[in-house]
């Protein structure tokens, strides 16, 4: 790779955008799990996914960001919206929205949160498990390198997994058609 292609000046205002996008994602996530109307939840989830795509861009993952927007926000969420339209929203909106498992939910969240805090604050010989310093800014040909990992015969570590993924999608398509058929 050409060393001159690596940008030497870091992007400006990265912390500001990180905190902005993180706030958008957290608020979107809270809206997803609290809205009565499933369409509103879907809209909040789309906002969260788009903010996450922007975070991918900040992490120098443009290909994953594009896949996130096209496949997640564009494909999967449209599927969700279709199904929400198929089932009757008006009646489900008047029903009770939460089951009586608040205690279990809070307990599980507290346990998992405690686990996360314990892992992320663990120090071995004065250092946390994950370094706190700034991330490097070298970029490379991201999409080509991902394609190399996926398809290249010489360096394609994930070629077999890629084929299995296509098989998984085929099975999922057949499964979805069979499930949604009127008479099986």
């Amino acid at each position, binding site marked *: *790779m050409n060393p001159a292609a690596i940008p030497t000046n870091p992007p400006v205002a*990265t912390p500001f955008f*990180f905190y902005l996008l*993180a706030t958008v*994602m*957290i608020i979107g*996530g809270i809206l*997803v*799990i609290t*809205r009565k109307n*499933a369409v509103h*939840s879907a809209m909040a*989830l789309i906002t969260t996914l788009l903010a*996450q795509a922007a*975070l991918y861009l900040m*992490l120098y*993952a443009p290909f*994953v960001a594009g*896949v996130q927007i096209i496949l*997640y926000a564009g*494909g999967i969420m449209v*599927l*969700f919206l279709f*199904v929400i339209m*198929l*089932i009757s929203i008006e009646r*489900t909106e008047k029903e*009770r*929205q*939460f*089951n009586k*498992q608040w205690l279990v*939910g809070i307990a*599980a*969240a507290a346990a*998992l949160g405690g686990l*996360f805090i314990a892992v*992320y604050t663990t120090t071995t010989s004065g250092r946390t498990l*994950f370094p706190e*310093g*700034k*991330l490097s800014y*070298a970029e*490379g040909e991201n999409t080509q*390198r*991902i394609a190399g*990992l*996926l398809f290249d015969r010489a360096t394609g*570590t*994930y070629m077999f997994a890629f084929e299995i*993924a296509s098989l*998984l*999608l085929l*099975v*999922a398509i057949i*499964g*979805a058609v069979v*499930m*949604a058929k*009127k008479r099986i």
Partner: protein
Amino acid sequence: MHAMLDISTLHYLVLGAALFLLGVIGVLTRRNVVIVLMSIELILNAVNLNLVAFSRYWQGIHGTGALHGQVFAIFIITDAAAEAAVGLGILIAFFRNKETVNVDEVNLLKW
């Protein structure tokens, strides 16, 4: 002061953990199956964020060719698409039979 403002891998991990917890709470407490599935998408996205952040960290050590985390994120997006298709297919079949989308009324296999 400036070093504190820098965004490290840990920032992304904490954000991913927060999203994961929101998804867990949504799965455990909501009754609407569609919103439960959306909460599962939140969980998968939290994992994806962690993977891409680790990929960034890994690139800082091993050079820009170390993109295994991003490849894993793409595989997880594939999984999410398959899961959404099958899950929503099951939901449509269930709604046709029982005229409801509430998880706690799904008791056909209970005895």
